[in-house]
Structure formats: C-alpha cells, structure tokens
C-alpha cells in the first residue's frame, strides 16, 4: 500500500505519522490508568524508567566511533564528580568534537 506524493498524499502521510506518534505518547498513561498499581508494578516502572535511557545509550557506545564513546565516558565522569548536567554534557560534546577534529 503506497501513497502518491501529491500535496494531498504527503499531507495524509504526515497526519498518519502524527496520529501514530500521539498514540505512543498517550498510550502509556491510558493503559496505566486502567491497571491497579501495586508494589510489583511500581518496582517495574521504577526500574523501567532508567532502563529506557540505558537501552537508548548502550548501542550508541557500542556501535559508535571512539568520539562518541569518549564523549559518553566524559559525561559519566564529570557528572559523578560535579553533579552538574551542563558541565557533563559540555565535556562530552567537547570530547567528541576534539576527537573527530584531530582524527579525521
């Protein structure tokens, strides 16, 4: 099934994407509002919320270049040392930019 990229077709494709994306955004609380939250569900949610980030970041470190790896490492170190996210992110970006600049 395909849509022709006429103005109407493109608009329809964008609207469909918007709808699918909104369903993912609202679906989580919609489902949660219908199931009781006991201690087990709460433990699941707490562990899951950090795990989302772990699952986003790990492949970046493993499949990325050394610039990305160094950036992530610098972020962790500076974050643990200073507890200031902006310093940590700045150190990370600097590492990646320097690495890629020096090692083209």
């Amino acid at each position, binding site marked *: 099934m395909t849509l022709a990229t006429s103005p109407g077709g493109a608009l329809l494709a964008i609207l469909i994407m918007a709808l699918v994306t909104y369903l993912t955004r609202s679906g989580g609380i919609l489902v949660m509002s219908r199931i009781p939250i006991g201690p087990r569900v709460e433990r699941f949610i707490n562990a899951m919320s950090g795990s989302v980030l772990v699952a986003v*970041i790990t492949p970046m470190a493993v499949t990325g270049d050394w610039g990305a790896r160094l950036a992530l490492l610098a972020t962790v170190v500076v974050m643990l040392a200073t507890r200031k*996210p902006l310093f940590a992110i700045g150190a990370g970006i600097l590492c990646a930019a320097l690495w890629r600049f020096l090692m083209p």
Partner: protein
Amino acid sequence: MGHSRSADARLDLAGTLDGMRRMAPLCLFVIAFGLAFGVAAVQRGLSELEALLMSALVFAGASQFAALELWGPEIPLVALIASTFAINARHLLMGASLYPWLRDLPPRQRYLSMSVMSDSNWAMAADDYRRGVRNVGMLIGGGIALWLAWLLGTLLGVLFGSGITEPERYGLDVIMGCFLLSMLVGGARSLTILIPWSVAAIAALIAVYWLPPHSHVVVGALAGGLAGMGLPTEKKRDREPTS
C-alpha cells in the same frame, strides 16, 4: 507511598515557565537538529510547508528522519506506520512511568501534557518526580520549549539550506546521548539499580544485533523493568521535603 504522594500534583503557569527556562540551554542544540532536519527534508523533496508541518505535528526527530528515508514519488504506507511506531514505542513506556505522577491531574491536562512529551523533557520530569517535586510544569514547559526550538530549527533549515551538512563532525550527534546519560547518572539513587540497568543494556544490544530494527529501546526497557520487579522491596525513594 502510593496514593498520597502525588495528591497535590499540579500544573500551573509558573511551573510551566520554569520548565521552559530549565530546558533553554538544550534548546540551542535542538535548533541545530531541527535545522539539519529541515535541510534534509527539502533535499528529499518535501515542500517547505510539508517539512514544517511534519515537525509541528509529529515532533519526534528520529522518526522524522526515518520517514525521509521512505519518502519518494510514492510513500510506502505500511512501512511508514511501522517505522514511526517502532521508533516512538518507547513513549509508551516513558508515559507509563510518569502515570503515578500525573494521575491526579484532570485527564485533559494529562493528555495535553503527553502531546509534547519527548526524551529530554521526560528525563527531566522523571527526575523531578523522583525527587518528590509535585509541580508537573517541567514536562509541559520543557516540551513546549523543545517544540518551539524544533520548529524554529526546521524553519531555519528550509529557509537557509545547507548550513550544517555534517553534524557528526562537530559532535552534534552525541549531544542527545550525553544529555540522556547525565540524566541517568544524576537519577541513580542506589547501587542495586545497576542490576536492572545491566539487564537492560544486554537486552538492548541483543536486540540491536538480532531483533528487528528499532526494537532495542523497547526490548531493553522491558527487560530492565522485569529485572527490577524481581528485586527485593528495599527501594526507598526518600523524597526531599519539597521544592
């Protein structure tokens, strides 16, 4: 904890503005991402208006870039829906994790807030929730700021064309990773959480190599959540008095 902790969760203008202010530094980078998207979209044959509409209505960077890959004289509808859903399915879990925080808001505010939920304002809102903050302004204020930045970036991209053609050269592609990682490290309250996180990391990698594309976030998050469910209930989320 349960019922009483979010009894007075609230959404107000001051909290929303504060959320926008706290998101402002990251917005500069989001403008750069948006610019890259605008450039890529026009190169791919979208009209200026279509690129802007996509950014305004979809507001989900990774899935928008993926859609460009599918764009052509004809758009494969099933693939478009599948890739948009797969890339954004993490929102389902992110939203679920905020439910205990948002549940006492009127449903309309709740669902409106979710319409601007994105990775970074979610991460900062989840951190607020963990610290016992009752004002949910970070979610919607941060979301509005990100949305404006994303739209502005797209506009600059379609207007001024090829500004940044190699964002990875300047480390722009790692910003989001570093940002999310700093949120993750900052939110770690006890070492036991490393157990579910390790499970999540391994599961995500397995999914990257052996499961369908884009499934790794959902697979990793679910695996981590299940691992966390098996931990003993030593979880004490001491909430600071207030803020």
